[in-house]
């Protein structure tokens, strides 16, 4: 009798694709016809052969959840340069699909810590960069108005509406 697993056959996981479809920019993956136009100008591909926007979208088409949003997924090496977005004839926008995949990895907690650290900082201070004494000093030396970012009250309310973060 043949063991089903030993054939190593993978099937398309439509439920993962449906989840991806629901994230902003995730639906684009459905339009990909695998032409590879997005690959040539991808700076990450140039430096790291196994990073390839076409194959990332192919894996999305198969619904390979673990490879795409498991821990240490290669998607976190995208530079966000938008070259693939410019080249794609099908308006897939691989970069937006990649960011949608990143959104999904937050639910699985497979994201690099820096992502939520930044969100946390914005939540607490309104800013991604901390206000340091050095910055204050330089601003004063340059005769710049003192720094103000008066928004936490409103941000707090907005964050509450989106429970996930």
């Amino acid at each position, binding site marked *: 009798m043949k063991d089903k697993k030993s054939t190593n056959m993978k099937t398309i996981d439509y439920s993962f694709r449906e989840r991806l479809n629901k*994230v*902003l*920019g995730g639906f684009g993956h459905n339009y990909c016809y695998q032409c590879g136009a997005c690959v040539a100008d991808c*700076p*990450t591909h140039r*430096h*790291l052969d196994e990073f390839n926007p076409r194959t990332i979208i192919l894996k999305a088409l198969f619904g390979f959840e673990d490879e795409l949003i498991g821990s240490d997924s290669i998607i*976190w*090496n*995208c*530079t*966000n*340069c*938008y*070259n693939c*977005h*410019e080249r794609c004839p099908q308006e897939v*926008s691989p970069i937006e699909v990649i*960011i*949608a995949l*990143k*959104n999904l990895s*937050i639910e699985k907690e497979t*994201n*690099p810590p*820096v*992502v*939520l650290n*930044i*969100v946390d900082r*914005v939540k607490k201070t*309104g*800013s*991604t*960069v*901390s*206000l*340091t004494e050095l*910055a204050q000093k*330089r*601003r004063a*030396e*340059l*005769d*710049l*108005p003192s*720094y*103000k*970012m*008066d*928004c936490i009250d*409103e*941000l707090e*309310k*907005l*964050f509450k*509406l*989106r429970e*996930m*973060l």
Partner: protein
Amino acid sequence: MKVIPFWGCMIALKYPQMEKAVRYSMDKLGVELVDEPRFSCCPDPIYFKAADKLTWLTLAARNIALAEEHELDIITMCSGCTSTLCEANYHLKKDPELREKVNKSLKAIGREFRGTINVRHVVTLLRDDIGMEKLKHSIERPLKDVKVAIHYGCHLLKPSEIMRVDDPVIPKILQEIIEITGATPINHKEYLLCCGKACQDHELMLNMSADVFESIHASKADCLGLICPTCFDSFDLGQIRVARKVNKEYNLPVIYYFQMLALAQGASLEEVGIKYHKILPREFVMKLQRSGELAAV
């Protein structure tokens, strides 16, 4: 002309010399800057967007809504802020369903995105509103003999249908505005390459930056000129790490475009905060000084 500057976190808190230079230039050009203290982080288009696109969009919409209340356009000085705010403005204007979703949240804080203003990078203000003629007239001390290798960075130009700044494959806007300062833009092979800052693999990021340094090194430019504080971070502070990795000193000074413009408009090196830069070869400072017969650092 009145506009609302969106300084963003990086410029205001890490590289305030860039804010100073923009304020100096805008003042010279008769542009009134109306500061809005209620702005938050744009929020950042790399990590915050990677966490949750909808919250990212909602916070961006809040910032735009604040400017709408003034009935003034936003100008951005950082390519990251440009990316977030232009993209949010574009999608929310175009997609009524998305707008409704976001506005439902904004209602909780008594605000609304209406889609009544534009968000633009400050270099388009120079080119399209102030105009090259007026810009030229504001130059008092042309930066003669200063050769500048341009680095465009990614988010000024792309996505091109949203940014509409220039041809993303053969852009010329930075060449044009650099020429106006009297400096000479220098072509080099990798002028459109990404700085690599967003890659999680550190090695990858350094390799990308190293390619840019090699390309500029070969061009024999005096400095690297750019318009994005994140790229600045990668190339000024980051140059120390790249140099260690490839075992080669590039000693390549990096300068933000508005520092050049302000210098050419009469600002001193001190006023544009050159001394805060990590990579600052003496010959370069002397060249800037000679060009403008400026006060010592």
